[in-house]
C-alpha cells in the first residue's frame, strides 16, 4: 500500500508546521486492521447465529415429522465435493500469505489466483445446485431455511471473492511486501476467507449431514 501512494498535498507553507495528526501510540500488539476484521467476523458469526437459531427452532421445536420433508433429496455428494473445493482454498490462501512473508511474489500470485478460482468454482457449483434442486424458498419451512442459510453463506463467499479480487489485482501490480503493514491487503481478506470456509463446514454439517 505504501508503495502505491503518490505524493499529493505535500506543498504546504512553511508556517503550517502541522502536517497532520501525531502518530497514535500503539497500545496493543495486534494490528488495527486485523483486530477490526476479527471483530467484524464476530458480528458475522452472530448474524449466522440468528439464522441457525431459526433453523433449530424450525427443525427441533416445531419438530416436523420428517426433516427434510418426504420427497426432498439433498445432493450430499455434490455439496461434499464443494466442501472439499472450499476447504482446499483455505490452504492456498494461507500459502499465498506465507509466500509474501518470505518476499515470494510468484507464490503470492499463484496462491491468490488459485484461491480465487476455487472460490468461484464453489459459487458456480452452488448456483448450479440451486437450479437443479427441485424446490424453492417458498416450499415450506425447509425450503426457506435451506435457501436462507446456504444463500447467506453464498453471499459471504461472494464478498470474500470480491476482497480476493482486489488482492489479486494489487498482487499482480506488485503492491505487497514482506513487512506486515505491506501485506495487510492479503492477510485481511485471508482471515475473512478462513471464516467463510469454517462457516461453510458448520452450515454443511447442520443442513446436509445431521
Amino acid at each position, binding site marked *: *500500500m505504501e508503495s*502505491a*501512494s*503518490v*505524493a*499529493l*498535498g*505535500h506543498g504546504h507553507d512553511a508556517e503550517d508546521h*502541522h*502536517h*497532520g*495528526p*501525531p*502518530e*497514535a*501510540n*500503539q*497500545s*496493543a500488539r*495486534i*494490528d*488495527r486492521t486485523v*483486530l*477490526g476484521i476479527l*471483530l*467484524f467476523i*464476530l*458480528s*458475522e458469526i*452472530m*448474524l449466522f*447465529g*440468528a*439464522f441457525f*437459531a*431459526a433453523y433449530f*427452532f*424450525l427443525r427441533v*421445536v*416445531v419438530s*416436523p415429522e420428517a426433516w427434510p420433508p418426504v420427497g426432498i433429496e439433498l445432493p450430499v455428494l455434490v455439496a461434499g465435493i464443494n466442501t472439499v473445493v472450499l476447504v482446499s482454498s483455505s490452504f492456498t490462501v494461507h500459502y499465498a500469505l506465507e509466500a509474501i512473508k518470505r518476499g515470494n511474489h510468484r507464490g503470492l500470485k499463484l496462491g491468490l489466483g488459485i484461491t480465487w478460482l476455487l472460490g468461484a468454482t464453489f459459487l458456480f457449483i452452488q448456483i448450479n445446485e440451486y437450479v437443479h434442486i427441485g424446490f424453492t*424458498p*417458498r416450499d*415450506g*419451512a*425447509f*425450503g*426457506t*431455511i435451506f*435457501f*436462507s442459510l446456504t444463500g447467506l453463506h453464498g453471499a459471504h463467499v461472494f464478498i470474500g471473492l*470480491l476482497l480476493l*479480487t*482486489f488482492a489479486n*489485482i*494489487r498482487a*499482480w*501490480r506488485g*503492491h505487497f511486501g514482506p513487512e506486515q503493514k505491506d501485506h495487510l*491487503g492479503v492477510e485481511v481478506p485471508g482471515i475473512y476467507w478462513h471464516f467463510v470456509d469454517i462457516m461453510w463446514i458448520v452450515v454443511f454439517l447442520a443442513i446436509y449431514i445431521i
Partner: protein
Amino acid sequence: MAAAIKQPGWYRGAIGALLGAAFGFFLVIGLRALMGLDIYQTEQTGYPHIVVPLITAPFGFLFGFGAFDYWFRWAAGKPTIPDDHSAHGATKWQDYFKFNTDHKVIGTQYVVTTLMFFLIGGLLALMMRAELASPGSQIVAANTFNGLFSTHAVIMIFLFIIPVFAGLANYVLPLMIGAPDMAFPRLNALSFWLLPIAGIIFIASFLAPGGSFDAGWTGYAPLSTGAPFGQSFFNVGVQFAGASSIATALNFLVTIITMRAPGMNLWRMPLLVWANLSTSLLVVGATPFVAGAQFMVLFDRVLGMNFFQFLEGGDVISYQHIFWFYSHPAVYIMMLPGFGIVSEIISTHARKPVFGYRLMALALIGIVVLSYTVWAHHMFVAGMFSWLRVPIMITTLLIAVPTGIKIFSWLGTLFYGKIHVYSTAMLFALAFIVTFTVGGISGVMLGMIPLDIHVSDTYFIVAHIHFVLFGGSVFTIFAGIYHWFPKMTGRMYDEKLGRIHFWGTVIGTWGTFVPMHWIGMDGMPRRVADYASQYGDWNLFISVFAFILGAVQLVFFYNMIVSWRFGPKAGDNPWRANTIEWQVSSPPPVFNFDEIPRVVGGPYEFGTPGARHAIMGGETAAEIPEPKPTTVTAP
C-alpha cells in the same frame, strides 16, 4: 456544474441515489423476467419494485457522496490519494454537511442529527398524548395511533438514544485516551451517514400505501409479516441503523484497544471509556440478531418465505426469541454509555475519586455478560417453553446486582464529597440516580413472573421503560451534552435556562410517568388509542405533564443554539476535570494533540495534591511537581 458532478458531494450524491434506485428497480424486473414471472406485479404486501430500490438508492447516494472513493481506488489497484488532512476539521458550517473524517466533526454531526430526531420523536409522542387526553377518539384514527407509537419508539431508540451516545463518545473518547482520531476514520464517517438514511426511510413509511409501520417497535411476527407495506420500511431502515451502530462499535473497540496513550493501562481508563468498551461489545455481539430477525420478516414479506408462517411449518415464537436476544442487550446498549457519563460528572463535581473504580468497571463487564442471558423475560406470556421461565427470572434478578453496585458506588462517590450543583450537568446526573433507581426497581418487579403476568401489556410496562429510558438514558444524555458543551463549542451555556430545563424535565418526567404505574396496575392496556372512561382523569393529568415536558425541551434547544453562537467563552477546563479532553483547548485543536500525552495516574485523583492523570506534550518533566505525601484523616 460538470466539475461539481465529478466531485464527491451532494450533486453526485443525488445522481447516485437516482442511479441506485434505477438499478434496484431494473434488477427486480430483470430477475423476474429471468424466472418467468410477470415483470411488474405488485403483490399484496410484497412491493419488491420499491423495497429493492429502497436498499440500493442509499448505496448509490453514498457512492456519489464520496463515502467509498478511497476504497474504490484501493480496490481497483490505483494509487490511493494520501490524506493531506485538508478535509480534516470544520472551519465553516458547510463542512458539517460533507463526508468529513474528523472524529470531532462526526461527533457534532451525530449529536445535532440525533437531537433533530429527538424532536421528531417527541412530537409523535405529544400527538399520542393528545389523542389519549380523554377517552374516545380525539385527533387520530386508531390505525394512525398504532403508527404513531411505533415510529415514536423506533425513532427514539434507533435514531436518538443509541446514536447520540455514539456521537458524544465519538467526540470525547479519542481525546480521553490520547488518540489523534478514531482507528478507522472513513468507516466512522460512513457510520454517521448511514444514520440519516435510516431516519429518512423510517419517516418515509408514512407515505407508503396503508400508512407507516404499525406493529410496534418490536414488529412481532406474524403481525408484521401480514402488515401493510409500511412495515418493509421498518425492516430495511433497521438494517441501516444497525449497520451504523455495528460499525461504530467496532471502531470504538479497536480504538480503545490499540490507540491508548502510553501509560494508560486498563485501570487508568476513565469510566466513560470502560462504558463504551462494554457497550461496543454488546453492539458487536447482539445487533446482528435484530438484523437477522428483520431480514427474516422481510424475506417472508417480499420473497414469500415461511420463517413465521405456521401453516407452512414456520415457528412464530422464534421471532420473539431472536428479536429479544438483541433487544434485551439493546436496553443496556442504551444505558451503559450513560453510566459512563454519570461517573465522569459525579466524580468531577463532587471533587472525589470514583468510589470503587475497579468494581465499577467490572460491574459493566458483568452487565454485558448477564444481559445475554435474560432476553426471555420479555416473553413470559408469549407461550414459550415453560421451563425457561424460572432460569430467566433468576438471571433477570441477578443483573440488578452489578447495576446496584454502580448506584451504590455513585452514592459512595457523593458521600462526603464537595458537591457542586452549579452545573446543570451535575443536576441531571443526580436526578438520574433517583429516577433510574425507581425505574430499576420496577424492572426487578417485572422480572418476577407472577407480577409480570399481571401487568403484561399494561401501562406499567410503559411507565417502567420510560423511567429507565427517559429518566435514565435521556437524563444522562442531557447531563453529557451540558457537561461537554463547553468543550465542543468553546462556549458556556446559560445556567439559568439550564435550571429551567432541568426542573421542567424532572417535574414533567415524574408527572407523566408515575401515574402510568398506577393505571397500569389497574389494568389499562398499552398500545391502544382508546380506553375505559375510568382512566380518563389520570390520562388527562399525564397528558398535561407530557406537554409540560415537551414544552420545556424548547428551552433546551434555545439554550444550545443561542449559547453555541453567543455564549461567553468557556475556557479550556471550566469544570476543573482531570481527564485528557479537558487539558486541550476548547474546542480542541484539529489534530487533538501536537504530541501524544503520557498518562501517569488514575483519571479521578481529586483531592490528592500534585496527583496528575496525564502529562501533555510540551510539558517538561521539571514542571511536574512531585506528589506530596498526605496524611489521611477520618472525616
